[in-house]
């Protein structure tokens, strides 16, 4: 009996904390339960959720990526630059593919030189950030035309944000890839047992590169949304988001050792981070308490998740 209980606690730690938090917030703050508040939370966190969800296969396959925020900046600044040059639609369409290209570069470096993904993406992250500075010349690129801002600011029927719809589509596609396709199986196999995957004739290297390409593309989409929303391309955009994304994936319970994880877990992780944020805003608490709480919750969730693993 206690065995089942600890297992549930371990497997669903983040979800349980999320539910407890949501219930608490709805009791202490009447504003929390309003649908508009929910939509706002989703809308604000759309770029983070898109990146975190696409980062999940990377981590399941045994990789890591700390360059996602820099990819977001390159793609976002490129989009803003194109918009400012009179091609707003082209900018939005191209941003995901710029991200895709940079993700492939990451994958090629990591698999080609056999460098640890952690080190490789620290380095490429610096390079990409530098490229973003170069694109903007270190300035702000203003892009406030309607043809550009619809992605980040627009709503359908004046209720649901377009960014939220894009986010839902991204989540659906990645969840489908991971759960219903051969590629998804390969991702789990490569991360769970590289040698067994090789002996099964899997293209380990291509699988790895594909995961990085995926998170690159997601970061490109997130970049387009972010820049479109603020109406300005600036090279430091998205800074810190790479760590939020990693935190969300791990918080949800995807294993950093690879081979285990799920998209719904990452969604829970992002929502948990978002609710903590939102709750503190609703309650008007000092921001430094918020950071302490966020960090503590991450530790709590990871500790709960790890409790039984060492058995």
């Amino acid at each position, binding site marked *: 009996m206690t065995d089942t209980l600890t297992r549930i606690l371990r497997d669903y730690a983040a979800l349980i904390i999320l539910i407890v938090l949501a219930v608490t917030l709805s009791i202490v703050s009447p504003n929390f339960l309003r649908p508009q508040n929910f939509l706002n939370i989703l809308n604000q966190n759309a770029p983070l959720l898109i990146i975190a969800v696409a980062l999940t296969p990377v981590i399941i396959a045994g990789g890591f990526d700390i360059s996602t925020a820099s990819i977001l900046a390159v793609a976002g600044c490129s989009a803003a630059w194109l918009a400012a040059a009179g091609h707003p639609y082209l900018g939005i369409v191209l941003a995901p593919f710029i991200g895709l290209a940079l993700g492939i570069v990451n994958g090629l470096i990591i698999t080609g030189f056999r460098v640890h993904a952690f080190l490789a993406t620290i380095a490429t992250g610096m390079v990409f950030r530098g490229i973003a500075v170069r694109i903007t010349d270190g300035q702000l690129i203003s892009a406030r035309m309607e043809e550009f801002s619809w992605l980040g600011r627009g709503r359908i029927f004046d209720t649901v944000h377009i960014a939220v719809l894009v986010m839902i589509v991204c989540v659906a596609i990645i969840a489908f890839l991971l759960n219903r*396709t*051969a590629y998804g199986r390969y991702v789990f196999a490569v991360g769970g047992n590289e040698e067994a995957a090789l002996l099964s*004739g899997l293209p380990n290297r291509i699988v790895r590169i594909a995961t990085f390409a995926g998170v690159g593309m997601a970061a490109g989409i997130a970049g387009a949304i972010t820049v479109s929303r603020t109406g300005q391309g600036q090279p430091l955009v998205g800074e810190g988001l790479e760590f939020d994304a990693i935190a969300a994936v791990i918080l949800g319970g995807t294993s950093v050792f690879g081979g285990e994880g799920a998209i719904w877990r990452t969604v829970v992780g992002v929502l948990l981070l978002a609710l903590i944020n939102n709750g503190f805003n609703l309650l008007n608490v000092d921001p430094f308490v918020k950071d302490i709480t966020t960090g503590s919750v991450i530790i709590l969730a990871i500790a709960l998740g790890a409790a039984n693993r060492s058995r």
Partner: protein
Amino acid sequence: MAGLSQPTVMPIVTMTGIDKRFGGIQSLRGVDLDLRPGEIHALIGENGAGKSTLGKVLGGYHPRDGGEIIVAGEPVGPGWSPRRALDAGIAMIQQELAMVPGLSVQDNVFLGIETRRLGVLARDNAARYRELEARTGYGIPGEARLGDLRVADRQKVEILRALAREARVIIMDEPTSSLSASDIERLHGTMRALREAGHTIVYVTHFLEHVLDVTDRITVLRNGEKVTTVETAGQSRKGLVEAMIGHSVDVSYPERPPLPARTTPAVLDVAGLETDTGVRGVDFSIRPGEILGLIGLVGSGRSEIARAVAGVDPVRAGAVRLDGEPITGLSQREIIRRRLVLVPEERRAQGLVMTAPVQDNMSLPHLKLYSHLGVISPARERARVAELMDRLNVVPRRPRQKVSTLSGGNQQKVLIGKWLMAEPRVVILDEPTKGVDVGARRMINETIMALAEAGTAILLISSEIEEVLGLAHRAYLVNDGRFLQEVACDTADGDAILHRLFETEDTKATA
């Protein structure tokens, strides 16, 4: 083989009724062992007999599941660990030496027990090292970088490390496995010197010649149980081998299908196979429905032959032909697609994704068959997996269950099922019954026979001679990457084969 006991000598270590399980496998069953001060005590047995495991239980590396350990009259409680073993004067030298290659010899020797003043390393360490060095006379400079030393010298550093901690009992797990003949002689000299100084040495090995040469007493293990403990004096290799293999009574083998007609063309043909992994010129062919065995000790090159044939390791010279078509140099994927498959030896390391469910593991190499444009059709996949689980009697029959939660025998069945999923024409089985219980073993053996009956060509590798003789039509003895001789399995004598293998191995070791 009655063991003499000398009740006057107070043992330094007494282990009684030691049990150890790994998952569902009982590795040690009620094993007793006593060690006297100033003796070299051999632990011998076949692969998987439990000799290393027993050493590791004593060294604190494996917690025991039952039984008692008494060191110098004091029972050790629960929570016996390498650290506590060291404190009690028991040091273990593992097969893979556990030291820091980037540090100097001296730093390695004193790692964790450095003389410090307020946390700053004191100069005494150098003097301490010289004193220790002088006691042994190994002649290894303390400043040398450990990573630059030869394996034999690193072992000596391990011994120095044990001595620096005042170990009275030193457990050596297969210390000669990577040593040259002259280094082995030197190691034996070292062991004798340690014995003279009153230390006890536990020598885990499978080289009988070494055992007879250097030890005082021998404990023989078989299938996790102690067979006997005897004084070395007066023992012969023949007697030890008999004690090691015994005569397994609990395994009966299913009827072999008839050997295919001589005129049937071979499905797999291997000629002049050589690899960088140590295969040195191997020729053989297998006809459909034929079971060919490879018999050899660990490190004989039998697994390397399998890996090269299956396209896992690159082939340096020679040809592998499937139905007359060369397949050397083809990708793993392509070879699997042509239905030549390898069931690898290490199911955890090479075979299964332990974090994934049974179903995903089984279909992993064959997803093309169950998907369209990369999208898996789950119904067909599940039906095929369920069929195989029935055929192999995998318990519980739940395709979504994680492999890691199954018993060893059922994991092995899943591994075999994985490679049978696409109806292969050639199956290479490397140690298919390693570490599985009797029931699973029988199921696996029956499966092998059924495959041959249906016309599959089988290459069966096992270190259990009885198993190869019971299952295969004919077999080759493998040593040092080459075939020694061919044997017909229904007439061959297992003991004679084992003697032949150990003989060749010992000639190599003492050459």
